């Protein structure tokens, strides 16, 4: 009687140390007098850092994380391809891993020959392979290509064949690394169904993917790995949302500095300390980058003084971080006569922008459309609501009401 498969990992760490060669090169560096732009390679890298987890029979576990977060190392450890530096792994069951699809397939053999060869290597009998062959060809659905050498296959076909050949393996713990992203949508559906079937019969499936939708569809548990540690372990929907937020924040801080610099170069000498722009919302968070909340009213104030030229127009532009021009208004300018200081107030009844980073630029134009002065302000929009099904430019509201005379129970906006 077989026991059901399970994985138990406690305090698992994997450290990659610098190689002897790189140490030697570093020591020799001052002696040879050669200066190198290469970074120091003498740091040990903790690819997996004190990870403990239990995976029970029948679980479909997704693993997500940035490139280099340690996902692959963790799987290699579970698959026994590399030894842990510290900690324990206890695995019940046979591990089958697809790290890169098509490993072990021979390019010069046809699909059919590959299936039979692989079956023989697994120690299956002729009749077992023949029945599996039927199943595989049906699943892979590559038609007459099955009798052609593998080198004539497209990536998608290879992936389908390799996945279908799992039928030969009879896996108890199946590890799939980035392998599902190659097929088209109908194949993805079939693969998902197959994975469900495996798990329903008590097997374990672990999927690593950057395709968050696939993770949400396939898995019932999701681990988010960040710099070698488990940052989150729980429902796929929550894990992917948290992960996406973290990625977005991280990217923003890098690109914000770039945006500010590019705006400074764009406007150059037009920027003037006597021309200011500020944003206000009741709960404004005054930091380097103001944070505004979607769905609430907000306003822009601007003051300028001592302009020598005669003003013609104001031009207010709103741009998104990726350069999309969201809004542009050109208005006739008025310079007040009494004082040298002019104040401009622009009010928005509601902030209807989708979450992200934006910039307002305000330019003063003279009568011949030249720009004597400009100013800008970068800000971030946050929202408490999440819109499902796409990424619109605006978060705008709409109402749906039953028409009079129609027979309706009730209608409301969520």
């Amino acid at each position: 009687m077989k026991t059901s498969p399970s994985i138990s990992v406690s305090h698992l760490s994997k450290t990659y140390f610098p190689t002897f060669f790189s140490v030697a090169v570093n020591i020799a560096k001052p002696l040879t007098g050669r200066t190198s732009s290469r970074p120091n390679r003498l740091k040990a890298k903790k690819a997996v850092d004190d990870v403990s987890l239990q995976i029970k029979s029948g679980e479909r576990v997704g693993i997500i994380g940035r490139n280099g977060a340690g996902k692959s190392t963790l799987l290699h450890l579970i698959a026994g391809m590399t030894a842990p530096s510290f900690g324990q792994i206890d695995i019940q069951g046979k591990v089958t891993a697809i790290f890169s699809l098509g490993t072990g397939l021979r390019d010069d053999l046809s699909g059919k020959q590959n299936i039979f060869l692989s079956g023989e290597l697994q120690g299956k009998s002729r009749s077992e392979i023949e029945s599996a062959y039927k199943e595989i060809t049906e699943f892979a659905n590559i038609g007459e290509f099955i009798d052609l050498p593998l080198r004539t296959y497209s990536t998608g076909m290879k992936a389908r064949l390799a996945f279908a050949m799992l039928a030969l393996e009879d896996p108890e713990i199946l590890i799939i690394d980035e392998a599902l992203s190659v097929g088209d949508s109908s194949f993805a559906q079939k693969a998902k169904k197959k994975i469900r079937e495996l798990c329903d019969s008590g097997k374990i499936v672990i999927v690593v993917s950057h395709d968050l939708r696939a993770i949400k569809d396939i898995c019932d548990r999701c681990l988010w790995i960040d710099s070698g540690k488990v940052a989150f372990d729980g429902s796929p929907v929550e894990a992917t949302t948290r992960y996406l937020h973290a990625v977005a924040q991280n990217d923003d801080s890098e690109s914000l500095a770039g945006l500010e610099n590019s705006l400074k170069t764009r406007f150059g000498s037009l920027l003037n300390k006597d021309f200011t722009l500020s944003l206000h919302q009741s709960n404004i968070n005054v930091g380097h980058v103001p944070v505004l909340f979607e769905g609430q009213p907000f306003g822009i104030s601007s003051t300028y003084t001592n302009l020598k030229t005669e003003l013609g127009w104001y031009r207010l532009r709103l741009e998104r971080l990726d350069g999309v021009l969201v809004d542009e208004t050109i208005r006739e300018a008025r310079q007040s006569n009494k004082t040298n200081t002019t104040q401009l107030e622009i009010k928005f009844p509601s902030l209807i922008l989708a979450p992200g980073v934006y910039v307002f630029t305000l330019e003063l134009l003279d009568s011949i459309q030249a720009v004597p002065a400009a100013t800008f302000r970068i800000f971030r929009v946050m929202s408490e609501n999440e819109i499902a099904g796409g990424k619109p430019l605006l978060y705008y509201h709409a109402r749906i009401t039953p028409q009079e005379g129609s027979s309706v129970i009730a209608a409301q906006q969520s």
Partner: protein
Amino acid sequence: MCAVTGVDITLEKGQIIGLIGGNGAGKSTLLRLLGGVYEPTQGTIWRSGDVMALYELGQFARRTLTGRAYARHFLKFNGQKPEQIEPLLREIMDFSELGEYFDRPIYTYSSGMCSRLYFATSTSLSADIYLIDEALSVGDEHFQAKCWKRLTEKLNQNASSVLVTHDWTSVLKLCSRAYLLEKGKTKFTGNAESTVTTYLSSIREQLAPGARFSNLPAQVSAKTGQSFQMPISITSESDIKDLELSFSIEKLKSGSDWKILILVSDLKIKPRGGRTTFTLEIPDLPIPRGDYYLNLFLTAPKKNGIVSAQPYDVKTWYWGNPIRLKVEDPDTQAMCVLPKTWAVQ
């Protein structure tokens, strides 16, 4: 067995064309024929200009080389002079974000790191013609965005390109023309939008029975800044307690842009059996003059945040049955017109 049969394709200078189709349709074979990997059995291919192939990236990489050594070999192989190589190497190192790994052997890389290296290296040089096979599915979300940006920059420098992909959204955004392949034959040729519509019509989900939109107009018009109202009738076989209506307004310029401007999802409605009419109202319509698509979706409520595979009814451009929305009044280069008031003191 013919992988590609009787295909005619013309790619002009500065043009980007897309090849879409299911697995095994012959897209990859066609791309490799264009790139000169295979010899055609019949027919001719005429090329003029440098070709940069972005498929099977890293096929020449020896795993014992460091990332830097690989990139240097690649650049040398592509005829770069020694003094051109150093700045390019720095650029590749920055773009691939490999950091200190750039000086470690490729066999220590994770698969994501490999593809970042190969992509950064292959795209560091400029060419007249780019052949791209699913190159945009490289790495995580952040890196994909970077790749996307880099490719569009390259392509906008008057380069020509053939793009092979499952991802029809990139065909919409980039390609002026697209070819739908099926079993090695061109099944459909046209602008990106019509080709994508044809492609999607072959793989779209079935409608669930029970409720349908009825008598929707093919075109509606609206004015910027004014309330937009539209009656929506729904016919259902019986009382339905929970139904969700979602709608979006999208701007689609084939080959240059595709944006969802407004998306409101999950308006809850409860139609009685027979026909029920609702009024959809968007106050102060914040979009400028132009032609848009208004898409409507009638679905059952989500379960665990996942939309059910079978919608009741769908009206959208990619099903070929959208409602055209024509907006009149002010003309602006911007995507939207935000409601606002000005005061000068």
